[in-house]
């Protein structure tokens, strides 16, 4: 049984923080230089009362304006910002969306590779005859995990959500996957406290490094240079293996969408892989890095702008926290 992406929507929360606002908070921060490097001018953030689950509901309701919700028979929900440790957020989402109780629903905890992993799970469920209309939601609110004084990560991350329907189809719209995992880098992108191993503690002290970056184990820590190193070592290999597994080459691929991490990283990966600019999506100017939502946001944006048209073969690659990475080729 074949599968294909049949619908995508995304949603960004109303609140916005611009580089100018960040600059007022951090006068020593060379905002223009940062904006040039990371390619981000503003990010959307949830309010203190809003959560990733709320974004998941909003984006799904937007999608259901032109899609019959009764058809959904499985929910895959990707987030690292669940409302509760338990129950499963996908169960809450099923109820709030008024979906049938006769459906499957599960959460999975992945970051920037999450959308491509979600496609692989959806394809597997359809191939196995377990489901035929799957709602894949990727919703993230890293702003909840960022220390107020963490100017670096506050410059990069934005909140957002995407909802994608993967349906059983006549022709194959989702190709073969290349998946990767290397947990040796787990401490380079981590929220240490708040899980079962280390409890959240108000007494946890802030640590300021030699570059003036503040971290605290209650909040998200990212070792940017190590993540960058992981990326430049592994993602060119991921792209090549994904192409090989799909019997394609860079020349026969119509368009390429990577996880929109930051401009600096994407510029270098594109250059290293010798991908022509016109085949390479790059736009996080008004969203920031929305983690597992960047690829579907980019996909929807590319379809709307006709950068991708029916019949195009599009390579997707997600990579990040874990470390975890995934690539595939889709046909819209």
């Amino acid at each position, binding site marked *: 049984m074949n599968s294909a992406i049949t619908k995508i929507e995304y949603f960004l929360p109303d609140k916005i923080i611009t580089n100018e606002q960040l600059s007022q908070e951090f006068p020593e921060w060379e905002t223009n*230089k*940062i904006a040039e490097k990371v390619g981000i001018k503003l990010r959307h953030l949830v309010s203190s009362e809003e959560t990733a689950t709320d974004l998941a509901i909003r984006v799904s309701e937007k999608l259901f304006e032109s899609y019959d919700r009764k058809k959904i028979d499985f929910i895959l929900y990707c987030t690292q910002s669940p409302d509760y440790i338990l129950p499963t957020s996908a169960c809450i989402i099923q109820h709030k969306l008024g979906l049938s109780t006769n459906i499957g629903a599960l959460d999975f905890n992945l970051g920037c590779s999450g959308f491509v992993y979600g496609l692989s799970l959806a394809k597997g469920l359809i191939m196995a005859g377990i489901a035929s209309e799957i709602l894949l939601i990727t919703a993230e609110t890293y702003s909840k995990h960022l220390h107020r004084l963490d100017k670096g990560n506050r410059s990069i991350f934005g909140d957002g959500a995407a909802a994608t329907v993967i349906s059983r189809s006549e022709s194959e719209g989702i190709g073969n996957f290349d998946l990767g995992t290397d947990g040796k880098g787990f401490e380079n992108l981590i929220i240490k406290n708040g899980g079962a191993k280390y409890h959240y503690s108000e007494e946890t002290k802030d640590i300021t490094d030699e570059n003036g970056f503040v971290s605290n184990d209650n909040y998200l820590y990212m*070792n940017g*240079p190590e993540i*960058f*190193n992981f990326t430049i070592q592994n993602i060119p290999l991921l792209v090549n293996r994904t192409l090989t597994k799909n019997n394609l080459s860079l020349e026969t691929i119509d368009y390429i969408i990577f996880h929109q991490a930051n401009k600096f990283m994407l510029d270098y990966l594109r250059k290293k892989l010798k991908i022509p600019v016109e085949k390479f999506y790059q736009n996080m100017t008004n969203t920031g890095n929305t983690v597992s939502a960047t690829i579907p946001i980019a996909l929807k944006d590319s379809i709307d702008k006709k950068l991708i048209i029916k019949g195009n073969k599009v390579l997707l690659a997600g990579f990040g926290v874990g470390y975890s990475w995934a690539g595939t080729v889709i046909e819209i």
Partner: protein
Amino acid sequence: MRKDVFLSELKELLEIDAPVFLEETPLNLTSIDTLSVMVFVDENFNKQIKAKDLKNVNSPHDLIQLIGQENFNH
């Protein structure tokens, strides 16, 4: 790579205004500089250097040592 070319490109990369830039010139790499240097080394020497090793780089000479003297000619 020739060392004079390396020094000239490193100076430009790090936007250093000083008229004289030598192997012994003190360097204080910011986090953005760190990323730029990692790209520069990967691109020119096909070598991935660790961020934690770059923390000990206080001059172009230290960086040359990290990349490996064998990759340079005088």
